[in-house]
């Protein structure tokens, strides 16, 4: 399998289409952690996330011949995984215990007021500098996990996985307008929380590892 590792996604897809299992397994190895991360962010549960990852790769295997441009394998796979993760969330929503927030999650929210930024302060450091510190990863992961599910899902697909607005809307089964509104709210919430930690006037929380 190692010998395939240097090949591009497009080459591997073509080989896999021709029946080369090791080429497909190389793609799996290349993307499994990324798809796991996506699934984990969306469903927030290990077993469910593992099922999503497995179903995503099996779906990709079944439909590989439909993928014309093999270089798009990553984006295509992310969309498949996001759709499967969303199905898990929908199933959970139908369960008897559900919060009002989740119930309201499906509505149109374009006209809801956008929360105003409360803490407005420059950050002490640039993102590049912050990313050189190991605790930054822990902080951004923690802060993201505090977002409501519907905002976290959109933010992850758009800003981390870099899917387009349309791809995100299709995967989550919501309108493009809702993607934009949720993304804006997610970014505002994260900005607020991170400014409390990284802002120039914020207490030095970073020092307390």
């Amino acid at each position: 399998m190692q010998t395939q590792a240097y090949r591009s996604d497009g080459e591997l897809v073509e080989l896999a289409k021709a029946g080369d299992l090791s080429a497909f397994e190389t793609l799996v190895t290349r993307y499994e952690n990324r798809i796991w991360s996506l699934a984990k962010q969306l469903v927030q549960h290990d077993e469910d996330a593992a099922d999503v990852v497995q179903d995503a790769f099996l779906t990709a295997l079944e439909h590989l011949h439909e993928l014309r441009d093999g270089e798009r394998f990553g984006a295509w796979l992310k969309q498949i995984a996001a759709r499967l993760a969303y199905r898990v969330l929908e199933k959970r929503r139908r369960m008897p215990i559900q919060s009002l927030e989740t119930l309201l999650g499906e509505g149109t929210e374009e006209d809801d007021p956008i929360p105003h930024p409360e803490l407005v302060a420059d950050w002490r450091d640039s993102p590049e500098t912050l990313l050189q510190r190991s605790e930054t990863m822990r902080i951004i992961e923690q802060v993201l996990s505090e977002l409501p599910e519907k905002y976290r899902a959109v933010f992850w697909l758009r800003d981390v996985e870099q899917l387009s607005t349309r791809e995100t809307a299709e995967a989550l089964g919501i309108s493009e307008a809702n993607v934009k509104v949720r993304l804006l709210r997610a970014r505002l919430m994260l900005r607020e929380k991170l400014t409390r930690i990284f802002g120039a006037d914020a207490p030095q929380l970073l020092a307390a590892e």
Partner: protein
Amino acid sequence: MKCEQLLRILGDYIDGEIDPEMCELFERHMAQCPRCQVVVDTMRKTIALYRDGELVFEMPVQFRERLHQAIRQRWQEKFGSSNT
């Protein structure tokens, strides 16, 4: 343009999906509003942290093994014995 209106189109502005006329209004407001400048700047930094931070978690080994096993099994069902 007021801060409130600016907030509504902030996402489009940051993603470069705003129409040129709105963009000009947006930037004219920003030039006179340090508060909005900071909001835009810190929001860009927020996005950059997540985009460049490459938050990738490692799939636990038991799930990974199960995944590869399931794939090999499905492959065999679909294509017969492995031909690698």
